[in-house]
């Protein structure tokens, strides 16, 4: 299975994950500083800054896009409960 590497900059931890994993699944397990509310892409609590490797995440769904716009999320930000890791290397930190 293809692997990807996600780095949580705030805690200085990189995790090798199988492709298809969502950020929420990893971040909660390693104790990164991203906080969650609804966990289903509506509340925008888990807004996360993608420092690099944004192209290695699945593009945002229409719903995620709308929530990001509604909350005036800056460029390069995603919802950790929605963003799915496709491969390669990604560096993130809480927004």
């Amino acid at each position, binding site marked *: 299975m293809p692997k990807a*590497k996600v780095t949580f900059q*705030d*805690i*200085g*931890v*990189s*995790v*090798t*994950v*199988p492709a298809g*994993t969502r950020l929420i699944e*990893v971040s909660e*397990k*390693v*104790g990164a*500083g991203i*906080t969650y509310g609804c966990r289903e892409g509506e509340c925008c609590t888990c807004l996360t800054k993608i420092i690099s490797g944004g192209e290695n995440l699945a593009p945002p769904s229409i719903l995620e896009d709308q929530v990001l716009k509604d909350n005036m999320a800056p460029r390069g930000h995603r919802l950790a409960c929605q963003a799915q890791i496709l491969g390669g290397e990604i560096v993130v930190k*809480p927004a």
Partner: protein
Amino acid sequence: MRPFREYVLDAIALIEPLELNLIAPAHGPILRHAPRDYVHRYRELATPRLFNEARSEKTLVVFYISAYGNTRRMAESLAAGAESIGGVRVSLYDLECSEAGIFTDLVEEADGLAFGSPTINADAVKPIWDLLSSLTSVNVKGKLGAAFGSYGWSGEAVRLIEDRLRGLKLRVPVEGLRIKLVPDAGELEACRDLGEQLARHLTGRVEHREIDMAALA
């Protein structure tokens, strides 16, 4: 001025050099008499009151409360561990009989905050929650946070405190330590180790870790 102190200070820096005749705020009365006094007063209210003598060092404040002295012993070992790493100044505070309000200045100046609480009735104890709830008025975003505590049955306190710290947008990079009843020598060593890890995080001397998702529980 909390929690907007920094914005106030930034704005005052822009206003102070101006020649003032009157102040017409976006809302509120127009101030015609001695407008300069208001600017002075704002600076006074927004300037941190606590003189931070540890400017060159990082500061870790350990708050704890203990029912039988077990969490206290953990706190002391943690503090000793953190102190053993150079460049970190550690202060230990027992929350017994204290009010949360008096710690606000201290929390604001600290780089790292550790909270120790026993678990009583499946929860952290009230003085800890009082202190944590008073932190909304302080800008604690990005500070380092950690939790620890002794427990007898289920030990929920540590996880609950960690969740609250994350909710306040603190970084909680090191998993909190829960120890059943009286900590033995090995467990106190683990507390010491937690202190050392926190100090390394504070001073930016933490080793980058690489792990596989399969290794995570």
